[in-house]
């Protein structure tokens, strides 16, 4: 196993180097995607299945889709050298002063990078040994998360118990990061044309080509992906996964649907209004539920939320509803990112 891990790590570094030196953007993105996949395998080997699922769904899945759609939007797919400079830049870059500054900047940046690597290596060489149980961070904190997770939160998966109950404030902040990023993407990319006919023509342009192979396979895959997403979502407190990974998978299912059947069909059950309603309701519920539990906790009041029978689907108090909320927000946001990137609207 150790050798396998070593090989994967070497692959990681190679991928990172190839990405940096590749001239073709599409190739870079594809290699980056495989980088993410290797990372998720390494996490399986490091016994962190939660991370593996999330990295595969979010890192390798949704992030890569966003990269591809960006490349498509700016027409960089198929071009051999998309980062070719225009005439003025070439002219400016050939000036001796600029050339010298460019060299200096490159040198400085590489030196800085090397210095950081060196400092960190120095640090790592002084760190406690890898995989040792006596390291300082294996202390009473992690012990209690493992020992009392079932008793105090009802979650069989200690990671879920930790992020949604012990350290729930962080996780609420994290949902807000996603929410605010979606708001910023809306600011940047939403087209607010009032002219409806122009908009209709525009929409027509973005309708995907009807493709029988894609549609037939999507007919089978779409329900399967959705079901799988929901399974990961509602089992978050029992098995690896949870709101974020499940939501990302459901979002990917929606993206597949839109690609196969077009916006018109998808808009029948999912449009901007649904997006807004679902995210606002889910986040408000999250906010209120967590406020209640923070307030009762800090004032030493009983929270009166039954934890249920550990191991059942309906158990562990607020964790299941919170996971569903997070999942809905993530699914909607991922889909919203996709459509906003693709055509500037929903």
């Amino acid at each position, binding site marked *: 196993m150790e050798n396998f891990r070593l090989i994967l790590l070497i692959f990681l570094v190679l991928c990172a180097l190839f990405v940096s030196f590749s001239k073709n953007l599409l190739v870079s993105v594809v290699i980056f995607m495989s980088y993410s996949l290797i990372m998720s395998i390494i996490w399986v080997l490091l016994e962190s299945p939660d991370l593996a699922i999330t990295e595969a769904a979010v890192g390798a899945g949704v992030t890569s889709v966003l990269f591809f759609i960006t490349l498509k939007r700016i027409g960089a797919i198929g071009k051999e050298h998309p980062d070719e400079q225009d005439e003025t830049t070439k002219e400016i870059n050939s000036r001796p002063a600029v050339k010298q500054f460019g060299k200096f900047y490159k040198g400085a940046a590489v030196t800085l990078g090397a210095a950081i690597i060196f400092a960190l290596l120095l640090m790592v060489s002084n760190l406690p040994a890898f995989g040792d149980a006596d390291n300082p961070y294996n202390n009473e904190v992690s012990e209690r998360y493992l020992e009392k997770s079932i008793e105090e939160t009802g979650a069989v998966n200690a990671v879920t118990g930790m992020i949604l109950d012990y350290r729930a404030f962080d996780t609420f902040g994290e949902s807000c990061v996603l*929410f605010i990023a979606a*708001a910023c993407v809306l600011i940047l990319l939403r087209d607010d044309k009032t002219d409806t006919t122009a908009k209709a023509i525009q929409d027509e342009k973005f309708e995907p080509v009807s493709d029988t192979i894609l549609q037939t396979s999507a007919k089978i895959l779409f329900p399967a992906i959705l079901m799988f997403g929901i399974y990961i979502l509602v089992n978050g407190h029992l098995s690896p996964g949870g709101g974020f990974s499940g939501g990302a998978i459901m979002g990917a299912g929606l993206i597949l649907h839109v690609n196969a059947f077009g916006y018109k069909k998808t808009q029948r059950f999912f449009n901007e209004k649904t997006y807004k309603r679902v995210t606002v309701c889910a986040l*408000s519920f999250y906010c209120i539920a967590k406020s209640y539990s923070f307030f009762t906790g800090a004032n030493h009041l009983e929270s009166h939320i039954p934890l249920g029978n550990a191991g059942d689907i309906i158990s562990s108090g607020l964790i299941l509803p919170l996971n569903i909320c997070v999942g809905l927000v993530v699914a909607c946001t991922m889909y919203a990112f996709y459509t906003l990137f693709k055509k500037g609207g929903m």
Partner: protein
Amino acid sequence: MDFIRNFPFFSIIICMFSGIITSVLSGKKARNLCIGAVSIVTILSACVLFYTMQTNVSFIYMMGHFPAPWGNEIRAGILEGVLATVFSLILLLSLVSAYHRTEEDIEATKLNLFYLLIDLLLSSLLAIIYTNDLFTAYVFVEINTIAACGLIMIRQKGRTFGAALRYMVMSLIGSGLFLIGLSLLYTLTGHLLMSPAKEAMAKIIATDSYHMPVLIVLVLMSIGLAIKSGLYPFHSWMPDAYSYSTASASAVLSGLVSKAYIILLIKIIYRVVGIDFIVTSKMMNVLFVFGLVGMIMGSLNAILEKDIRRMIAYSSVAQIGYIYMGIGLGVEQGYVAAVYHILHHAATKALLFISVVGLSNVSGGSKLFPDLRGAGYRHRSAGVAFAVGSFSMVGLPTLSGFISKYLFATAAMSASPKKVFLTLVVLAVSTILNAIYFIHTVVTIYTPAEEEKPEFERHHWREKPWVAFSLLLFIALNFALGVFSQPIVDLITRGLQMFG
């Protein structure tokens, strides 16, 4: 437990909740909700301040049912109360005093998103001020960064997009360094909450087993936060970001956003590493040098600027330098001076940005000095406000700027002799440079224009009484910080002692 102890939590959650609701409201409703929420938060923060002043101890508030080191918690003391109150008050005033500009600058369909960003920005500022947990701080630092980026680019122009891009790249480098520092800190101590982390840290330092790693972690975290707050030479995004975004946004960005990172750095220094280690390790000398360079270079760039808002933006670069110089002195008075300077700069810079908008409005929208001649007569309230702000920046007695310079000078006296000399010389030079460009600007706006141009208009305060009123409050805040400096400095000193 007293009910007031819930207030820090309430103020954070009110902002977040109103931010979430705002996304489905129309622009006008969003504005009212946002102003309402910020006013409530200001009152709550003031209550927290008075409560902690009376009890004279800080208190811990558990976020959930689990105590430290298992659950998240927030903590409030005098310093947190002061910062929260002043920050939310300044945010409120900047929103109210320029909301007519906001509505002109931003598309009507996206107006509610502006208030959404403001709500979440305030919640992240408060969370960074109150938090007792390093990872919570990281998450909210990211919210703060994204919200600030949104505020820069919501006025959709080429310049603002470029500024937002540069800002994001710089911030992300900073975040990366901060995050790796944070994870290494966790490896060393095994804790993410500040109080248990400090105990573990004290043990490590006492046994001297990880001297080098502790130093590297500290360097990574402080450089990361310094890059994020725009310390010279990482300031390239500042001029464009501050001068082309809408007025309220630039007031908030320069006054509050970059300060949040500095507050977090001070918190880490006091609450995680311990001030004694910092003083003995001398690692803050790096920040000291960059701070000094920033003080001079920022002012020089400001003198060369022909655009009034860019000039004020460059002056912000210099002021960030002041704060880092105070932190870099490595003595406790230096931190008091730095915190006081944060308050002074937040109040004064917001005032300057808001009043400049009034001045350029009556000069046909131009921001160039020749066009601004006589603007002080055309828009009297903005003229007076700008003059007061400038005098405060230069450091005229009875205004807050004077006190902060005095505090820096006295703090330097207890530092090492080399630092005394350097600090005093640079302080003097930078004050002269400040005086050159600010006095020049005040003289310009009070020199009568050679000819009445058709685009010039006169503004009477009765047209928009709320603008005049909030400018008046800003001026009052400046005088209050200057006149009641002794009690405020006492509060800061007591607050910092509570940190330890």
